[in-house]
């Protein structure tokens, strides 16, 4: 019986390692055939910004890895609208994450769903295991 896992990302990238090591957990979880969802809220929305260039801080740019989530069948990705707005961001500022639907001739479909706090509340209520980073 598959369980519903939710990983909640609330931290900015690079300042701390939580965003990167959270992504490592998410990728591993794909191998367990569970129902996996991701939330990006609070400073977690900054993890998905486009055009990250880390050369000058000497750290590895791990943002390209998010685009692999689709290949791992991770396609329930929720972004909290209120967090985006507070930061003056829109979905256009973030990476465009997609997955390919095997049942629909491998059509590319959006993985990212913009949700309100209220919608997020019911998504979170529906989960069986939540790990917040």
């Amino acid at each position: 019986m598959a369980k519903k896992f939710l990983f909640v990302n609330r931290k900015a990238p690079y300042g701390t390692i939580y965003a990167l090591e959270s992504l490592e957990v998410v990728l591993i979880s794909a191998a367990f055939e569970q129902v996996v969802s991701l939330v990006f809220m609070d400073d977690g929305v900054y993890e998905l910004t486009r055009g990250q260039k880390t050369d000058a801080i000497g750290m590895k740019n791990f943002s390209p890895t998010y685009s692999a989530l689709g290949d791992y069948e991770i396609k329930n990705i929720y972004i909290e609208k209120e967090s985006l707005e507070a930061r003056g961001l829109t979905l256009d500022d973030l990476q465009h994450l997609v997955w390919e639907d095997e049942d629909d001739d491998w059509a590319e479909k959006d993985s990212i769903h913009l949700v309100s706090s209220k919608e997020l509340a019911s998504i979170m209520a529906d989960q069986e295991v939540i790990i917040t980073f």
Partner: protein
Amino acid sequence: MSTLHTINKSPFDRNSLGSCLRVISDSDAILLIEDGIYAATSGTIFSDVVKAAVQSHSVYVLGPDLSARGMKEDGIVEGVNVVDYEGFVDLVTEYDKTNSWL
């Protein structure tokens, strides 16, 4: 599926309590632990937030963390329930899952 939300940060230092309250569901409860216990104390600029939360949700505070920080049980917001580690364990089993707002 009900959720026990744990908050371990001072509301003066971080906004995890605020974030939790934005997405909490009706059947959920909050447990304040570690530096999160300061949110439960009366007379602070955050007391009204907790007073409001108590109206709609069960709010608990971990007694051992209160005592460690010199906060008195009679100085907490009305309606907040004090539990010890055994009570913490009971809450974890009582609610369907736990979400730690780290």
